[in-house]
């Protein structure tokens, strides 16, 4: 089952890119984790970032989201250059991300985790806290209502008042996504959203990700499970040894012997075995 519209152009250079990077490099004490990665993410689509372990996928996500500074290269969100921006500035510009290993705000309740993500909160200013309690109260109520709706969608409503550290692994994965969505992202980077998740929940998560696309969110997801990639991603970027090896649709990439040799071959065998 494929949701890819066959009439859509594949490596869409015609659609303006939502996110673009060129010549990204990052070395950790001599190990070149990322070594000239360059690609662009088409607006409003789901793009998969795949590649063997150690290809530099998470490092790329960390650099794009500002969590890590690149050694060289440039990054753009739409037309705006974001090279060297810190995380919070990137996030305020509409790019939100989730983490490979869930990073919940453990001492906060599930609802508070979502509320923290609400953009443009007047209540983060001390002056407003002291002088404009009415404004803050109104905003909090609106944000809480929206957060509760999201928690319902993501099946966490019952756990709204639970400290996030007490959630199960799968629930934490759901919380990661719900929290990022609460931040009203234009672009969402999902770092292995399906890792360590049971098969039934994988399909549920896949459904959520497709729903986000329908809402107009551009998505880049790091994913190892090619079945998932085939089902929900429009576009694939293959990373190997820190470089962009190929881009295109998964079906086309399967014909690319270089890609198959570097990565797909073994994994395809493995996935067809089960």
């Amino acid at each position, binding site marked *: *089952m494929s949701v890819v519209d066959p009439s859509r152009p594949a490596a869409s250079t015609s659609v303006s890119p939502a996110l673009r990077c060129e010549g990204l490099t990052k070395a950790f004490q001599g190990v070149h984790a990322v070594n000239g990665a360059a690609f662009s993410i088409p607006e409003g689509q789901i793009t998969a970032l795949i590649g063997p372990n150690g290809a530099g996928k998470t490092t790329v996500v960390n650099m794009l*989201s*500002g*969590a890590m500074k690149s050694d060289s290269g440039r990054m753009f969100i739409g037309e705006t250059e974001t090279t060297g921006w*810190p*995380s*919070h500035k990137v*996030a*305020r510009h509409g790019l*939100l*991300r989730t*983490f490979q290993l869930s*990073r*919940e*705000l*453990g*001492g*906060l*309740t599930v*609802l*508070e985790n979502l*509320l*923290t*993500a609400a*953009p443009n*909160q*007047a*209540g*983060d*200013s*001390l002056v407003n*806290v*002291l002088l404009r*309690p009415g404004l*803050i*109260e109104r*905003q*909090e*109520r609106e*944000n*809480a*209502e929206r957060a*509760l709706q999201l928690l*319902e969608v993501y*099946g966490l*409503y*019952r756990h*709204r*008042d639970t*400290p996030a550290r007490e959630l199960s692994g799968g629930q934490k994965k759901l919380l990661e996504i719900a*929290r990022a969505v609460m*931040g009203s992202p234009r672009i969402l980077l999902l770092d292995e959203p399906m890792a360590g998740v049971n*098969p*039934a*929940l994988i*399909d*549920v998560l896949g459904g959520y990700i497709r729903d986000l696309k329908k809402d107009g969110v551009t998505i880049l997801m790091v994913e190892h499970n090619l079945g998932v990639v085939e089902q929900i991603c429009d576009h694939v970027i293959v990373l190997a040894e820190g470089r962009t090896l190929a881009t295109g649709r998964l079906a086309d990439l399967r014909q690319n012997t270089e890609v198959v040799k570097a990565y797909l071959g073994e994994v395809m065998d493995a996935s067809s075995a089960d």
Partner: protein
Amino acid sequence: MTYYVFTLVFFLFDYFILAMGLNIQYGVTGILNFAYIGFVAVGAYVTGVAAMPSNINGEHYILGLGLPFPLNTLLGGIAAMGLSALVALITLRRLRTDYLAIVLISLSLVLYDFCNNYVSLFNGADGLYNVPEPFAQSLGLGANGFIVFFACLTGVVSLILLFVMRRVMRAPLGRTFRAVRDDHVTAAALGKDTFRMQLKAMMIGSFFAGIGGGLLIQFGGSFNPTAWLPGETFVVFAVLIVGGAGNNMGMFVGALLVETLLIHLPAFLPEIPGHPGLIEYFDLALVGIVLMVMLWVRPQGIVPERLRRTPSFGVTPKLDDEAGELDRTTALAGVKVAVAGTEEAR
């Protein structure tokens, strides 16, 4: 007797204020401020020199503004806050946790040596004395009357500050502080400028430290380096840990148990025969033991941080949605069927 009781009452309220300040820094935002007593001292000194006239009995003090009560103490609070902003700008951008703590404890020692030796600032080891007692003359209070009055005044100040602190902690700002404490990487990924947030927490907490220090110097009328040995910071930490980090009421309970009962009460107990002065030295040992026992048995403190539940955000949750959860479970079951179906088709 009145004197003893109200001295204890004063220290209860004053340490309640100090603990609230450290709580917003460490308990809520997670900044290990091991220089806390330094900010208390700056508040005390600045309040002192702001309160005193420029010339007492031929002695000159810097500033010497002769300001009346609330103004001089406010100035002390603002001075401590200003210093904390400077310290935060230097340290908080690059350091966290243990490394930050090491730098801050060094700062505390440097500040201490500086004030102790640079006599023309705050009179070195002799410190400040003859600091005016607020309202003592205008109300015609005697020594005991002043103690009672000032202990009550400190209580009123602590209630005002509690009101302010509650508002900060219940606001989105307080939540963001806790987010920074729990995981600063996540907080940044959600659009929070973690440095600015820590700076704010440092400044709010240090303002409280400065006010607490200002009250301290006016209560005793004098202040010198023996009052703020860098180790004093850990007494405030003990108040915080015993009371319950993250909870304002915990700060009151901690101040009552640690500062009032363990630190100050023993000084009023009769001497142990044959060992004059020994009993004074029991206090810190007792604090250490209590701290260890607490961390072992109840690390969250006597009054732990409270969870904020849904209704406190002004929304009424639906009566628990067993039906909704049921839908979810059916949906999951449906998915399972679908998955099984695809596998069969393969």
